[in-house]
């Protein structure tokens, strides 16, 4: 399966910066940006045969991160999705909540910096790509 990285965040700047960083670190995997969960979900629905690595923000309009995860989980079709919650929230409650959900592979605090990427890579390397 082909992999695809999705960046789902309502802030353009963040998306931009993140995209930059990720492109530098992970080469070869396409990155797609969405500005709310619904859009992302729609996209995934339409393209279910990909291995998605989703960087998901929580605080978004229309469908926030939590809703997205829930909806993704209750999708009738089979998807292969690893969700990494990327949020500005430093609330431990959010972290716990996220880790408790299925499909959530990790919880990253914004800003997504070099260090975060390093650890992400290590974690990823552990799992087969």
């Amino acid at each position: 399966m082909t992999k695809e990285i999705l960046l789902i965040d309502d802030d353009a700047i963040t998306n931009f910066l993140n995209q930059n960083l990720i492109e530098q670190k992970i080469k070869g995997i396409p990155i797609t940006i969405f500005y709310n969960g619904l859009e992302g979900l729609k996209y995934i629905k339409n393209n279910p045969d990909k291995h998605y690595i989703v960087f998901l923000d929580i605080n978004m309009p229309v469908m926030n991160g939590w809703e997205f995860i829930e909806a993704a989980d209750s999708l009738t079709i089979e998807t292969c999705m690893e969700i990494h919650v990327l949020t500005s929230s430093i609330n431990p409650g959010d972290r716990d909540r996220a880790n408790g959900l299925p499909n959530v592979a990790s919880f990253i605090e914004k800003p997504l910096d070099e260090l975060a990427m390093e650890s992400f890579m290590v974690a990823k390397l552990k799992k087969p790509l």
Partner: protein
Amino acid sequence: MSPTPDASSLSEDYIFDFCPHPMWVYDLETLRFLKVNDAAVQQYGFTKGRFLRMTLKAIRPKEDIPKLQIAIENAKGRKDTYKEGFYRHKKKDGTVFPVFLKGNLIQYKGRQAELVIAVDVSDTVDHEKRLLSQNRLFQAISDMNNNLIRNPDWLKALDVCFTLLLETLKIHRVYFFQSDSKHDRIILMKIKTGPGPKISSERYGCPALPFPVLQHLIERLRKGRVFSMKRSKISDPSLVETLETENLKSLLALPVFSSGTFRGFIGLEDHELERNWTKEEVQLLNTLTTNLSHLINQSDVLDKVKNSESRFKSLVLNGTDLISIVDMDGIYRYASPSFDNQLGYSTHDLIDTCFFDRLSNEDVPRLRSALEMVQEAQKVEIEPFRFKHSNGNWKWIESIWSNHLGETNIQGIVMNSKDVTDRVRSKLKKELVLDLVKAFGNKGSLREGLDNMLEKLAKVCEIEAAEVWLKSKDGAKFILLGQASRDKDGELFLNHPMPVDFFSTGTGVQCKIERANELMIWDDFDKKSEFVRSNVAKKFGLRTCIGLPILSGQESIGCLLLLSKKPKDELDDAIYLLEGIGHQIGGTIKQKMVLREYLEFFELSPDPFCIIGFDGRIKQANEAFARVIGINRTQIVGGEFEAFIHESNRDKLDLVLPNRCGLGRTDGVEIRMLSVNNMEKWFIWSSTANKDHELVLAVAKDITDQKELEQSFKMSNARLHRAHRIAKIGYWYRSFSSDLSEWSPETYRIFGYTPENFLPTMENVTNAFHPEDRHLIEENPNNHLEPGVITKFEHRIITGNGAVKWVHQEIQMIIDESTGEPLHIEGTVRDITKEKEYELQLRISKERFLLAMSASKQVIWELDHRSKTMLYCQVSNRIEEQITKQAFEIDNDWFRRIHPKDREFVWDTLENHLFESEKDDWAIEYRTISENGSIGHVLDSFYVQRDCNNNPIKTIGSATDVTVAREQLEKIKNQNKMLTEIAWLQSHAIRSPLTRIMSLLMHHKAYGEEIFSTMDLLDIISTSIDEIDKELHKVIKITNKKFHNDQGNIINR
């Protein structure tokens, strides 16, 4: 030796001088010696010269001088010239001696003189004297011999002899002592005392020989030696004294022996002289003694013969032996006189009669054959046979026959017979007694035994009917216990019905016998109408009644009645046999009676009895014993007693068998015994040892029940004590008359003392009370106690080691009803220190609880599911508890206060939880509605207590008013919500732009102005900062809003 002179040549003077005989011439007138020869000189001892100066008188003893005068005178007138005669002369030394004077008258020198020859005839005289005395002695001997021989009675002869001796020997006393060897005595048989000086008249009859002398004397004499004693030879002063008194000068004793045995001695005493006994005298005496001994011997022999003869005579004449001679056909040829006094036949009666005619018929054949036998056998012994006495009675004769047919003197069979009637009869009697006893003993029961015995008796004594009457136990009646008869009549008599119901001991034949206490015979019994059965007897021809008492020791136990057809005279034999039988059999009968009684008791007893031998084996046991042990009696007898004892108690066996512990009797030994099914039984044994029979008689009492009771009591008691201990209850008792109380072990423990170190006197007990509580015990109990009622006290005590304890006492005082004075007081004491603590704590707890309850406004409720009731309490005013009880229904007060909307819910939850759920505790929240309509919130937590089937038993709940809490909670919720909001805002809304800035800065650092210019960068940053600021404002606003709301609430509250 001077040469013999020739006499022929000598002068007449010479012859005169040489004449061997003293010769002299004396003047008739002057009596002066004119001429004397040498012989005279020699003889008289005077010198010639002296002689010529003497007169005849000088040679004459003084007393003879008058004789001399007369002689001279005669001589002067004498016609004859010759004269001779015997005179006595005296020598110069005074010796007087007899002379034979021969004298011739002469003329000498112109004077009338006489020529005298003096022949010393002293020897002759002596000789003659001796001859005389000898003659006398011999005469005496001869006389004595004659006497002794002639006189058959030697004592008499001795008498004569003694007289002779006295005379002949000139002694003063003579006696004969005879020795009685049988009695070892010396007896004075004969004494003769002659006339003599100074024989003390007292001892006239008996010579007083001092004992030592006598002893010595006898000793010698026994040996056959002659004993001689002279006073001068005695040195012993006392002896001398005695001899003086007796005036005994000399003593001679001669033994008399006959056929070698010492028979006695003859003693002679001389009171004047101490004599030396002459040969002839001794011979005389010896003759006497020899003859005497001979005589004694002879007389002895004669005596023996006489005795023997008289013995024989008396034997033959007066003896009981019957000597008879019969010829070959049994005809009497001779019969000794004894037949007369023995059998009443004089010799005359028997001669020519036949021996066999007088025998009893049964014995004749036996004796006839014996007669045959003796003709061959020479001697035959015949066993006793019956010979008829002249008076018709039979006598038993035992006999030895010897064959003297050959001897000419006899020519017959000599029968030496003896009347052995008594012997035979007594033997028969003894046998009878034995038989009777045997017959009695053979049968088991008393009655059978008596019947059997009577049968035997009737047979032997040849009586027709016999009865035994024994006295009843109370001694008032005679009971007929045995009967026997020998013929039909007797039987009929016995079976005839009794004319009276019973025979009392006051009347009748039986009574008479008892009174007399000896054998009684009623001849003509049938005629004696005083006896009730005399008619009956008459009917059957029984005319004589013999009765004898049956005695056991001294006690009369009954009597024997025998009835016979024979008259009294013919019943001699029977009577002889019956005499005294009562004594002989009485004992056995009594024994059997007693035995029967005892056996009955032995068997009857419900308690085990047994008889054990000294070896430990059971010889006899009664039914009760068998029953108790549970096995057959036959298996017990012969077995070891030990086998029935439980092993733990086997050592006590020695106590039961007193012979083993040396006692005569032991009492009260408790032994555990095993019955057949191994059940344990307890018995208390008493036993006594009978050493003669080597038996131990033991009786026991079953105390199993008691033992069990005892044990259970012990156990109970122990349990009680333990219970006391567990419950920590002590018991005490004090009688008012005593100062000392009795304390149970637990009481001591509670008070912290032991019986060893504390004495519960009133004083000590009072001191054990806490000082402040002492008043309870010091005052009159009546003040505190009501008699008969149990009163409680709680007070403090000070224990042995100084600790203070609380005790609870329940006391009861018992008074004497009549006086009202207290008798005793008792109570229980319990250590309640812990309880008191708990109580205190509980009280504190309760206070706390009430305070807490009132402070917290909680309501405790309780559901009792069994009774379906509900209980709840409310605390008001901090100290008051109000408890309400109601039925468990949805419309009770409790539920009614619940808000209607929640009521259903609460009920259902409760129900659900109670009956469906498995959990025990739960909590529900609901609203309540008060009377004034205000709503409260209640948190009701409860706990369900369930049984093993999970059904609820009880539920306890606590309803807490949480209105305030609820409101607080609401507020908090709101606040939380706000906080969350704020947090969220902070986290997301505020931080988001911040992270944007961070990222931008990061990016800028990394890439510089590649993508974003600085201006753009600053723009974006500024925008972000504004965003942040905006968010912050939002936050403040929220918090402010909240604060105001809160303020408002607080005020409202």
